[in-house]
């Protein structure tokens, strides 16, 4: 069944036991993103290192479908404690994968469990669900940097 391409075990696992969920303080930037078609919502907080080059702490709180929740959990695992450079590489790779309609060889080093989201890219209505957390994180980082 095609459906199991989207709902891979690893996705359902992140959905049922999300990693890193819960907003934390202190933080340097916060962004709240909404998917108006289905009402998914996420708030992402980012605390950057003093030189602005590392994500010291990323935290989030969210409500929504399995894809958006799993994506947030996977994103957290992948970028917490990493450099902004790494974040951008992962974020770009994830975006490229989601826009690929499924014709993509995802880089596991950059995406971690995120490679399991390749099946989601075949369902246009769900791409936004998968991207929500990444886009919110990007915004939170911009805001955290703006405070410097």
């Amino acid at each position: 069944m095609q459906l199991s391409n989207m709902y891979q075990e690893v996705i359902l696992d992140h959905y049922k036991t999300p990693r890193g969920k819960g907003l934390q303080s202190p933080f340097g930037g916060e962004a709240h993103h909404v998917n108006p078609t289905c009402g998914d919502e996420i708030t992402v907080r980012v605390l950057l290192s003093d030189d602005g080059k590392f994500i010291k702490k990323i935290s989030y709180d969210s409500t929504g479908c399995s894809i958006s929740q799993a994506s947030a959990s996977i994103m957290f695992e992948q970028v917490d404690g990493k450099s902004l450079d790494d974040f951008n590489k992962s974020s770009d790779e994830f975006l490229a994968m989601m826009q690929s309609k499924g014709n993509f060889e995802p880089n596991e080093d950059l995406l971690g469990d995120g490679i399991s989201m390749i099946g989601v890219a075949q369902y246009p209505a769900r791409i936004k669900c998968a991207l929500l957390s990444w886009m919110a994180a990007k915004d939170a980082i911009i805001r955290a940097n703006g405070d410097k």
Partner: protein
Amino acid sequence: MTNTDSKIKLDIKKIQLDFPILSREVRNHRKLIYLDSAATSQKPQVVIDAQNNFYETINSGVHRGAYYLAELATDAHEHARETIAAFVNIKPEQLVFTKNATESLNLLSYSFLNATMKTKFGSVVDKRLILNPGDEILVSELEHHANLVPWQELCLKTGAVLKWIPITDQGLLDYSKIESLISPKTKIVSISHMSNVLGSITDLELVGKAAKSVGAFFFIDACQSVPHMPVDFSKLGADAIAWSGHKMLGPLGIGLLAATDELLEIMPPFISGGSMIETVSMQKSTFTKAPKKFEAGTPPAAEAVGLGAAVEYLQKIGMQNVHNHERHLTKLMVDGLKNIEGVTIYGPTDDQDRGSTVSFALNGLHPHDVGQVLDDMGIAVRVGNHCARPIMDKLKVQSTTRASTYIYNDDSDIQALLEGIDEVFRFFGTK
């Protein structure tokens, strides 16, 4: 002739054959089970043919051109107006064609804004259309955004204040609150006839009487009612009703506004330009009478003709028969959902008069995921907030799954949905 009141059993299998899309396969070569008619309905072949026929045989500009084709096109356009007007028991000149119901409601709200603005610069307008700061507009908590946001916007531009009738836990208007919400300050009452989320039907007589008791205009969003039950404009006590063509078997891109002669006379134009004028000079223009006053620009004539064919199709079936059939399906659906453990139904669940739109939740699962698994089985339902976010807040949910029927749905579609829901629970291992 309309087949009202007859208790005939409709031959749904035969009706389904009139809808070409119902014979196509969807995901995984599944048969399409379409349960999203509250969003948009499917189109019978006669509607598709009527629209194609317009383009193939009489396409030309309506209401302009003295040549043969232009006459035929104009006749077809106006014949459609007559058919649709008769369907809700009004005169053709009381029926305005718009782009969709949202535009119809904006036409109403902008009339107040335009009148209020124009009077500041010397135009003579009917005083009843002028809004002053502190005037009130009354809607309800179960409105579709189309009957909420235009009024919020109007308030922001005029200083009027928006009030709303709350809904009860059963998803009905809390009529006990009307008395305290309505006053001589109330200038407009605009209410949905049937909720597009919960299927609940509004007691229009009660709300209309309250509106009229303070001299307010009374408008109805009839998007979910006109396609599914007999609606007689003269019996609603309303100044205007708005609805869309595409939810009643007609083409996309055509909406409707039915209004009293008086309101159409006093409302200034909404969109202005060609076709809606009498005389134009560089200094000023005068406007033609309704409905053309509100139909600036080249009209979507093929869509109007297609909608006329849709109305004729519905009249042959009979609107009471449509409603009876859908009440039967609704009972089947509501009773079936009640019997599935882990399903929560929102809105009326007893056997009262209600629409065939049913919102529900599968406990522990997000509607988007529910819809995805149902889609895998060929079942099309709507998931989300259904353009009615305030109801979601009231229900304390983020979104719901919504199934809605029409004349082409049968018992097996409901059965497929109920079995599909079991499959959703199994798929996510929550049962």
